[in-house]
């Protein structure tokens, strides 16, 4: 039986009175592109930090490729690459020096062929001899990704890698990460950009107050929680509101339903009520709606 890339069982962590993780259970299979979502303070970064050995859990078990992150930390860490949320760097070194040093920390010498390949993939070759201080924010972000990959980890965790990043870099980064996933790497992503998570992640867990409140494939989540919507601009808003619509911005009234087959019925009722439809828009279910729905329900 294949071991899961990540196994998290009954993990708890408190900071004084604050319960950051209240018994998290999660299993991520090898080769998955997995999204970890939640509002600020939900416990995403604490969970990732516990997985990376930066935070010691109060209870529970965390494993990377079958290796316990506390008892067998050396093997767990060899299998894990983490791209941290903060834009941190060591100002004393050039990009290449930094990547060689990072390789050495993982016990790897003579890693230049692989370093060259990573630099080329991240469009950093021209900056290899530049000091970290001289790089732009976007370049520094790419170096962080490169640092997480020097030891060729099968599991890669990206903690909000696109926060404050411009569109071009974001696109390039996702292209690269998708390629890594196609090559067999397991990717775990936390992000506040829900569109990204919807497009990239095959499965998603949502955290709230240190607990997993939703865990399913992205498609299932969209099916289970999200509703289709019809927005209409009408001459008689009161008539539309009387039919169960909800007033939204700019004088529009919104109707929610489970399938588009219901659109005709809604329009027929509006016509009968003399609401006078002037404009209309159809809304597809999206992860943002799912997220809001889940966070309000639980």
């Amino acid at each position, binding site marked *: 039986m294949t071991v899961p890339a990540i196994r998290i069982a009954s993990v708890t962590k408190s900071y004084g009175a604050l319960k950051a993780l209240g018994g998290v259970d999660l299993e991520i299979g090898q080769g998955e592109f997995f999204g970890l979502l939640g509002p600020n303070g939900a416990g995403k970064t604490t969970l990732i930090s516990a997985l990376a050995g930066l935070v010691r859990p109060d209870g529970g078990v965390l494993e990377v490729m079958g290796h316990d992150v506390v008892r067998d930390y050396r093997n767990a*860490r060899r299998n894990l690459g983490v791209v941290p949320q903060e834009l*941190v760097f*060591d100002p*004393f070194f050039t990009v290449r020096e930094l990547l060689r*040093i990072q390789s050495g920390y*993982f*016990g790897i010498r003579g890693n230049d062929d692989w370093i060259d390949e990573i630099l080329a993939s991240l469009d950093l070759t021209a900056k290899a001899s530049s000091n970290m201080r001289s790089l732009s924010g976007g370049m520094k972000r790419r170096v962080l990704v490169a640092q997480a990959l020097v*030891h*060729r980890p099968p599991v890669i965790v990206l903690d909000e890698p696109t926060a404050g990043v411009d569109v071009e870099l974001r696109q390039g980064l996702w292209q690269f990460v998708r390629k*890594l996933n196609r090559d067999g790497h397991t990717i775990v992503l936390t992000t506040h950009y829900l569109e990204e998570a919807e497009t990239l992640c095959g499965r998603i867990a949502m955290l709230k107050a240190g607990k997993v409140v939703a865990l399913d494939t992205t498609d299932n989540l969209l099916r289970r929680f999200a509703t289709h919507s019809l927005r209409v601009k009408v001459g008689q808003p009161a008539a539309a509101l009387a039919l169960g619509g909800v007033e939204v911005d700019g004088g529009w009234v919104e109707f929610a339903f489970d399938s588009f087959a219901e659109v005709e019925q809604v329009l027929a009722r509006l016509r009968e009520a003399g609401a006078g439809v002037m404009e209309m828009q159809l809304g597809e279910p999206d992860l943002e709606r799912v997220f809001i729905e889940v966070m309000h329900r639980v």
Partner: protein
Amino acid sequence: MSERVPRIEVGAEAPWVGFRTLLYKEVLRFWKVSFQTVMAPVLNAVLFLLIFSHVLDRHVTVYGDIAYTTFLVPGLVMMSLLQNAFANSSSSLIQSKITGNIIFVLLPPLSYREFYAAYVIASVLRGLFVGLGVLLVSIPFVELQLAYPLWVLSFAVMGGAILGSLGVIAGIWADKFDQLAAFQNFLIMPLTMLSGVFYSIHGLPQLWQDVSHVNPFFFMIDGFRYGFFGQSDVSPWLSLGVVGGCFVVLAAITLAMLAKGYKLRA
């Protein structure tokens, strides 16, 4: 990226590479700014030497017939060595903590013992570089003998290791530069200055001689000086015992802090 995702083989890496890399990084870190980390302390020590020798050399002799400036040089060498050993580990750690790049050392599979050894050995090396620098630039000013080189080396290495360990403790404990400066100015500096760098404790009133005997820095400098002159205020074996004991205690405290992940792994 032509290769498929690798299978990581357990224990596949060459042994000690992680430790050696961290040591190399720590040495490279201070070497890249050696004007600040090596040259500046050497210049400071030379200024001390010039001023004190000019003022006191004709008025003071120590251990019978040793000129004051000659007596002063080993003390200055050791003082510079100790202060810089402390500065190395403490400044490296607090900078890494405050800028956040400490994460690059915490994510890899390095043990807390490797972490400790790398930071302390780098501190000893910086201390030795600075100490050697002070010694070399002092040679034109004094006729220095070297009675027992092994004693000199033993006290230099152990003193550097003690201050390197103290630097690790301070660097981990301090949350801001202000706290580290307090550690340095209110603990390290007074203990160094009152350790007999500039005088023999036999010239002090009895009370201050007794106070000196509870200052471990006194034993580091007195033992180190014995290696040069073959004479000291107390037995070099006693100094070796005190210094060795201090190192064992501090190493144990530092290792316990690192094993627990104090302020590094929340």
